[in-house]
Each structure stands twice: as structure tokens, then as C-alpha cells.
């Protein structure tokens, strides 16, 4: 429904640090302009909540808020992915809500694509750009994939070390610079240079890491665990307490190297059947964390995420069997930050006392 001759500006909702990778694919591959979604703020969530069904899972509210802000700023082609839960309805519902609000835009809903039919795939690609060149898109894919892998690699290292930096802000400053350098990448060659340069600088940042650290693993639903705003920057909070944070859930481990089968097999003892969406990942990741000897696991999920709710009693079983605390957090658009802080602090007190490093107080 984009007007003729109007420049196409595509946008995908804010999600972790991946927007520059999507930008590369859209601009280099599809040949249209990409709008980096405005960073999520409280306004995004308020806008999204105002126009969403009250009981929908929170990621939908974030996405809708993001669409609204992107439309305000001139985006006219929105995208949504598909998934194994309500996520499949996200696109359709968001599109309808936005149309009812009177917005004019093109909507590329991947849930509508018949992935076995090349025709259907091409048809949907044409929604982004009617004159799309399939060859160009295919050519852009490897660099996008490498970019995502690099982002995940960078973030993993950051999570493991940021809590121990000697000079406060070193990691965050480098991360900012790193993401900015990804903004205007033109080629795979350039990406390789950036990769070499930044990974080297990342590893050079002075850290003061004791031999024994407190390690905590994060699990949870696809969006909440990956989008820091939606989990109240929990990884940052944990790192600030001096913990090493682990999180296996990212695009590399799901879309690029799909580990579903491996994960499902690994979790079999606790979950014979798949509870849906990312629940098998949650269970299997939690199990692998406790088997690796981590000190605690935190599950973050959006309020009302049924697959994650189903995985809660299973996580409790793992916690009982391995005697490792597993804490659950449910986030809604109206979560009290004080409650989160209190429980996180208590979590820290608990793991440090268990670790008995001498710093913790015996209860």
C-alpha cells in the first residue's frame, strides 16, 4: 500500500543488538532504505500497551510500540517474523491494529510465507521491494549471517567479563563503538577487518577476574531474554554485582546453527515432549548450566508466556535434583522495579553464601 514513487523505508522491531545486521540485508540485499528502529524507552512500551490487548504477552507490546514510533519517523514497510507460539499471530494482529489506527504501510509478515513454495517466498520478498533482485539478496545473506555471529560472539565475551573490568565503562564504550562501526558496513571484507580489530581490542581490555567467579545462566522466552530493555537490563545488574553471566539463547544458536534437535535430546530426561516455543531451549539450557557447575540460573519470561510457564515446574525439578537455585521472573508492562531489585539482591546473597567464598554472610 506504499504510494507509488515514495521511497521505501523498511523497519524490523528493535531486538537486542541485531538491527545493523538486518540493515545490511535490507539495504544491500533488498536495495531499499532501512530505518534502525528507535531505541526502546518507556514511551515505546506505553504506546504499545495502549493499543494492544491487555493480556497479550509483553513482546507484542514492545513490537507494536516500536512500529508506532517507526511509522512516526517515516518508516513505511514493517516486518515481523514467525514462531512456534503466539508469535505467529503477532504480524497479523499488529498489522490489523495499525491499519485500524489509520496508518498506511506495507507489511511483510513472514508467518504468511509458505516456505516450501519458492513462489510464495518471492511474492513476500516483493512486498519489501517490488523490484527485488533475488541474486542480490542471496549474495547479502552470508555477510549478514557473519555479522550476527560476530555480534553474538562479542556480546558473549562482554557478558563473561564486564563484571570484572578494571576501568569502569571500558567494555560499554568499546561496545558502543563496535555497534556504531557495524552501522555502515558495505562488504564482507570490511566486516572481517572490523571483526579482527574489535575482537582484539575486546580481549585487551584489562579485567580483574578471580580464578573462581560466581557464574549465572540466563534462560527464558525468545524476546525477553534477548532484549535487555524488556528484562530490565538484568544481565547488566548481575554483572554489576560481580557475576559472570551466560546466555546461550541468541540468533546464532537458534536460526543460524539450529540446535533444536540437540537441545531436545539433551532435555529428554526432564521433558519428553516439547512444551512449545522456546521452552525446550529453556529447559535444556538450564540443565546444561547446572551441569557445567554454575551457581544459579535465572529464568526471565513475559507474563502469560504459556510455554515458559509450562517449563517452570520442570526447572524446579532440575533445581531440586542438582541443588542449584533457579529463580523465575515474570515481566509485564506494569512490573515494579523494586520487586525485581529485591529478588536479585537476595539471589546474589544466596549464591555467594552457597559458594562460601568468605565474602558472604552465613545466614
Amino acid at each position, binding site marked *: 500500500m506504499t504510494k507509488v514513487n515514495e521511497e521505501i523505508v523498511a523497519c524490523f522491531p528493535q531486538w537486542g543488538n541485531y538491527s545493523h545486521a538486518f540493515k545490511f540485508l535490507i539495504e544491500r540485499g533488498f536495495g531499499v532504505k532501512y530505518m534502525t528502529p528507535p531505541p526502546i*524507552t518507556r514511551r515505546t512500551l506505553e504506546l504499545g500497551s495502549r493499543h494492544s490487548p491487555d493480556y497479550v504477552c509483553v513482546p507484542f507490546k514492545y513490537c507494536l510500540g516500536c512500529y508506532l514510533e517507526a511509522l512516526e519517523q517515516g518508516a513505511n514497510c514493517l516486518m515481523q517474523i514467525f514462531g512456534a507460539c503466539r508469535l505467529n499471530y503477532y504480524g497479523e494482529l499488529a498489522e490489523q491494529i495499525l491499519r485500524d489506527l489509520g496508518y498506511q504501510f506495507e507489511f511483510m509478515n513472514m508467518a504468511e510465507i509458505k516456505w516450501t513454495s519458492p513462489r510464495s517466498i518471492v511474492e513476500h520478498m516483493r512486498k519489501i521491494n517490488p523490484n527485488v533482485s533475488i541474486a542480490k539478496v542471496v549474495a547479502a545473506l552470508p555477510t549478514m549471517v557473519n555479522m550476527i555471529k560476530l555480534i553474538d560472539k562479542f556480546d558473549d565475551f562482554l557478558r563473561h567479563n564486564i563484571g570484572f573490568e578494571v576501568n569502569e565503562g571500558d567494555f560499554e564504550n568499546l561496545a558502543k563503538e563496535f555497534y556504531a562501526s557495524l552501522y555502515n558496513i558495505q562488504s564482507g571484507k570490511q566486516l572481517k577487518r572490523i571483526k579482527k580489530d574489535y575482537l582484539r581490542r575486546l580481549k585487551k581490555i584489562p579485567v580483574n577476574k578471580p580464578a573462581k567467579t560466581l557464574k549465572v545462566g540466563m534462560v527464558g522466552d525468545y524476546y525477553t531474554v534477548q532484549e535487555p530493555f524488556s528484562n530490565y537490563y538484568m544481565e547488566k545488574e548481575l554483572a554489576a554485582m560481580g557475576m559472570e553471566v551466560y546466555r546461550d539463547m541468541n540468533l546464532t544458536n537458534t536460526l543460524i546453527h539450529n540446535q533444536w534437535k540437540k537441545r531436545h535430546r539433551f532435555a529428554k530426561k526432564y521433558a519428553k515432549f516439547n512444551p512449545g516455543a522456546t521452552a525446550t531451549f529453556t529447559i535444556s539450557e538450564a540443565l546444561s548450566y547446572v551441569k557445567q557447575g554454575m551457581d544459579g540460573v535465572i529464568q526471565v519470561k513475559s507474563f502469560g508466556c504459556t510455554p515458559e510457564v509450562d517449563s517452570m515446574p520442570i526447572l524446579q525439578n532440575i533445581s531440586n535434583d542438582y*541443588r542449584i537455585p533457579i529463580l523465575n521472573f515474570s515481566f509485564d508492562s506494569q512490573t515494579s522495579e523494586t520487586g525485581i531489585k529485591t529478588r536479585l539482591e537476595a539471589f546474589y546473597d544466596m549464591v555467594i553464601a552457597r559458594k562460601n567464598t568468605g565474602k558472604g554472610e552465613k545466614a
Partner: protein
Amino acid sequence: MKKGYIGIDIGSISTKGVVVDEKNTIIASDYLWTEGDPMNAVKRLLKSLEKQIKGKDIKVVAVGTTGSARKLIGAVTNASVVKNEITAHAIGTTTLYPGVNTIFEIGGQDSKIIIIENGYVVDYAMNTLCAAGTGSFLSSQAHRLGVSVEDFGSIALTSKQPTNIAARCTVFAESDLVHKAQMGHKKEDIIAGLCKAVVTNYLNNVGKGKRIKAPIVFQGGVSKNIGVKKAFEDAVGCEVTVDANGHLMGAFGVAILAKKSGIERDFDFNITALDFKTKGFECPKCANHCEIMCVYRDNKLIDSWGNKCDNGAIRVNN
């Protein structure tokens, strides 16, 4: 001159304070209503504590704060330790009952369960989503039934057939309660039913999937309600201990933490005479609109918090 340590637990409904000596004995304590004004409540509390230790030759060397207003009061009292209430309660309880395995805690606005093994917290859960089955719910229902919340427990004990009340949610419980009363159920049965409902709700909610093992200690404001204590004992099938100082356990725990911290700071009861002001505002610098709180002592900024990023940071100039 003996050293004394103050622990203050500022909850949503009540403010608790203790002074302990070096042997962890409570020398002074008080319990009063917060009345939505933590600053004033703490001033009243400190005045009362000061009166109680007067002439006993005690010098307060450290303060610890806990509860939902711990940060604010920590700034005001220049506290050595500001600790979350889960840890504070665990420390307080295990000091008095070293063998405890389970702590039930029901306060004014929240409820928690803490599982302890060999003196260490191994698991906990806290209900912050909803106030069903907490103290404020019980007191509003007592008001509706025309009895004082202090008599609630003893009335409940007189019931032989507690009425079933749907207590999943405060609003539903209230309408169910009205319905049962209109049907002709006796008041004591309804009251006993409410106590039972609180316990069922608690065990199904925060207690879900937790290993509840004796010895069990029950504390928080609601532990003063013997009706709820009895309902707990019926539900878990073993004795549930309620300490006479159960309502002070958070304050007691944080006083011990303040003592253990070894950080001694000058404390003067005179702060009750000083003028503390708080100012909250929404940071206009980005769309996050962080709620920033500034605390002033005699119009001088002493602390601020609430900003998510550096744009909203307010530095204290010392």
C-alpha cells in the same frame, strides 16, 4: 559504654526497629504504622528507640535498613548496611532458630517463602504481583466484617466449620465473602475460612513446588494472627513456630548484618530534629522518563537515584 546496633525495617504498612547489643540481644524495639510516610515513621521510631535506651549507657555505632524504603532511610540514617528483606529475614530467623528449614513470611503487601538448609538460604520465592492473602487484604476484610484485625485470629479459633472462600484474588474473595455472609454463614466461620484461604493461596502461590520441611517459622505481621497460624499447621501437618518477636525479624536481621559489617559510623539520634526532604521528578532528558528521587538534608542534597543512564545522573557535591 556498650555498643548498640540499630536495625530498621520500613515496610509498606508498618515500620519496625530494634536496637541490639553485641550479644544479639534486643534491648529496645518498636513497631508502628508507616502511614504512607516512611520518613516520619522512622523519626517517630527513632525517638521511641532513643527513649528506651536512655540511661543504659549504649552508643549506637551502626545502622542497617531493610524493607521497601530501605534505600531512602539508608540515605537518611547514613546506614552501614542496606539489605533486601529476604536476606534480612533469613539472617534474623536463623540467628534465633539455627535449625530452621522453612520460613513463611506474610507481611502487609507481600508474602515470601525462604528455604534454608544448614543455615544457608537455598531457595526463596516472593509474591509481588498481587496482594491477595496478605496483611492489607486481611485488615480490609476485617473492617468489612466489623471486627478489629487484632481479634481476627481468636475469633477464627472459635469456628468449628470454616466456610470455603475463593481467595485466588482479593476482588473475588471479597465478593465471595459478601455472598457467603448473605447466605447466612456465621461470622466466625467466615473469618476462619478467610484464614484458611490465605494459607491455601500462599501454599499454592509462593509455596508451589518448594520443599517445605519442619522446623517451620512463621513471621511477618500476619503471624500475629493465630487463626492463620492454626490454618498453616492444619495444612502442612506439623507445628509452626511463631516467635514473640516474629514481626521484628527483618529489623533484627539487618541489625545483625550492620554489626557484622564492621562498618561503624557516627550516629546521632538528633537526626529526628533535622529536616529531610525528598523530591521526585521525571527526568526529561529522554523518552525513558526515569523517576529520579533526590534526598535533601536541611536543603542540601545527600543522595539521589532512579536514573537508568548517565544523562540523568545527579552528582552529590560534597
